[in-house]
């Protein structure tokens, strides 16, 4: 089954790779998984093996992100931002080893509980998913896109542009219903549409090179050196309730479409801080300040898998990349996944558990080794990443057009990031644009062109309300958050 020696080997390899990738500032779970998808596809791995490898990389990268957060005060990925608040002060006080092990254990607890939650919740949710018709799916996609800007988004117009860009790109190619070509400009290469893998690797990995060149590849040796690592049992025990609370908060946050690991870690940290009797330690090396966001974001990452698997709507940016992975394996998530291919679901859950255990075991002794990765100069690393991306995409299609397209996406990604236009909605738009349009058109066919059909069921109406609320909310929350941040 999933526990064969070869699968375990893959899990270990994935965890090591993932942690190394995640530890590097700038490269996160999204990039890591994105770069490796084309490779895993051309390696001809079967579905279970690819899933095991990728989830190991995914979780490994989440663990890895902590390393640069704690040692360098540079978040290894977006969810790791909250960890810098207390992790880096801890490191400066000479307790870097403690912080790293603590974050490892907290991550494990969060991920483990989330996987349990996934096992319990997902089949339930899959039942509900049968109530979803095309109108409800359209509303669901709308909800996902409206909330993707996230609570932290500063500019909803930019988020909207990102979504429209992604959806627009998805429109390129042959329209399935009518057989017409759209927006191909007569180019044969574009008939099949734009491959989302090309877009993902371009937007995430290649743009990274440009960003690095711009920052002149600043040396990473400003970080904290790592001394002997011991396991801080006492602190682990002290923070056990923190970890539990944060895991629950994170899981719920992750399940909501659009919200992801970042929200999970943010909410968990804020919750811990507000219920703590003694708040003075927070921001200055408080153990709970490390345990909370770590448990929170790992359980949110697990929670984000719930909508992804049951409804086919990713709960976050990284699950969007996982969705892309599943699609390359010809696995369509959704309620049918549970009935038609349950072995995939259980295989995935098993691989999650395995990856988590492997990571816990690896992280404690190897954390010192992983932190060495940070010493690799950017001038070697980034070209290496680029080459891997190129080979990955090239091995898929063998066409230099796809490579050029990838470079275009890289340039586009650079500009999007400079202009603070989020890139995740673009990817999601490309992934789901086709489905969204099909749902809408199917709904219209069913209703004979009657637009009120979209609002006919209570589920649909509820989703529309949530979508609109989710889109408008950040505009008000931003004011609220900045005011309270000033007051701190």
């Amino acid at each position, binding site marked *: 089954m999933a526990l064969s020696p070869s699968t375990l080997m893959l899990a270990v390899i994935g965890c090591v790779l993932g942690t190394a990738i995640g530890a590097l500032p700038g490269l996160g779970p999204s990039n890591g998984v994105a770069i490796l998808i084309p490779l895993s596809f051309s390696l001809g791995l079967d579905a279970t093996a690819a899933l095991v490898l990728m989830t190991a990389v995914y979780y490994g990268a989440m663990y890895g992100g902590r390393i640069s957060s704690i040692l360098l005060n540079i978040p290894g990925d977006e969810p790791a931002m909250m960890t810098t608040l207390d992790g880096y002060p801890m490191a400066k006080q000479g307790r870097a080893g403690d912080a790293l092990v603590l974050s490892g254990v907290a991550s494990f607890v969060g991920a483990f509980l989330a996987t349990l939650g996934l096992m319990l919740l997902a089949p339930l949710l899959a039942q509900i998913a049968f109530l979803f018709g095309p109108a409800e799916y359209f509303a669901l996609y709308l909800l996902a896109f409206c909330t993707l800007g996230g609570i932290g988004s500063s500019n909803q117009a930019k988020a909207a*542009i990102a979504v429209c860009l992604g959806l*627009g790109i998805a429109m390129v190619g042959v329209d399935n219903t009518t057989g017409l070509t759209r927006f191909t400009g007569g180019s044969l290469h574009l008939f099949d549409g734009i491959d989302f893998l090309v877009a993902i690797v371009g937007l995430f990995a290649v743009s990274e090179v440009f960003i690095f060149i711009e920052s002149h590849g600043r040396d990473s040796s400003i970080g904290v050196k790592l001394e002997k690592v011991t396991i801080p049992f006492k602190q682990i025990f002290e923070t056990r309730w923190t970890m539990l609370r944060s895991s629950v908060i994170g899981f719920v946050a992750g399940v909501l479409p659009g919200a992801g690991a970042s929200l999970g870690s943010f909410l968990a940290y804020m919750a811990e801080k507000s219920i703590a009797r003694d708040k003075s330690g927070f921001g200055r090396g408080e153990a709970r300040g490390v345990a909370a966001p770590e448990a929170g974001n790992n359980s949110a990452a697990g929670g984000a898998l719930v909508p992804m698997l049951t409804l086919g709507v990713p709960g976050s940016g990284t699950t969007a990349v996982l969705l892309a992975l599943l699609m390359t394996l010809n696995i369509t998530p959704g309620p049918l996944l549970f009935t038609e291919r349950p072995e995939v679901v259980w295989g995935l859950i098993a691989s999650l558990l395995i990856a988590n255990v492997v990571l816990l075991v690896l992280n404690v002794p190897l954390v010192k080794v992983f932190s060495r990765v940070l010493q690799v100069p*950017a*001038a070697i690393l980034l*070209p290496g990443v680029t080459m891997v991306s190129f080979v990955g995409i090239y091995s898929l299609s063998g066409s230099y057009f796809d490579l050029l397209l990838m470079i275009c996406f890289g340039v586009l990604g650079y500009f999007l990031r400079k202009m603070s236009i989020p890139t995740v909605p673009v990817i999601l738009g490309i992934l789901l644009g086709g489905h969204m349009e099909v749902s809408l058109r199917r709904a219209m066919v069913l209703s004979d062109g009657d637009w009120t059909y979209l609002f006919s069921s209570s589920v649909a109406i509820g989703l529309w309300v949530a979508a609109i609320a989710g889109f408008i909310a950040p505009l008000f929350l931003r004011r609220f958050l900045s005011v309270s941040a000033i007051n701190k």
Partner: protein
Amino acid sequence: MSDRLTGLIVMVVALAFFVGATQLESPFFADPLGPKAFPMMISSVALIAGMVMVLRPDEPPQWPELVTIGRLILATIILVFYAYSLKPFGFLLSTAVAAAALSYQIKTNFINSILTGLGLSVGLFLIFKFALGLSLSAFPRGFLW
């Protein structure tokens, strides 16, 4: 200023998209919406969003200085050349050159860059060919355009 410009570009592209969509022909047996509707909806939203960006711009980002812009353009050209040169020149040669050039862009140390290029090229090739079993042509196969 940057925001306003981007907003303007977005509006122009959205309009172009919209016009392109209107020129799509729907066969008479198609569904009620047809292939035009969704693109038109998307471009309308994008148009409005672009207008918002023009009317309420954010703080402009820090654009790099001219030298760095030159480096970035050079990097793009290198990547394009790499894409075109993979087939005729084979993996080893084109990767070595491209990796060295990119490395030089990030950190301008001539010898280090060359070493990086060679090291990455050979190392990655070995990994890809033998550890992962991908088929890559190592050496130039002649100029088969």
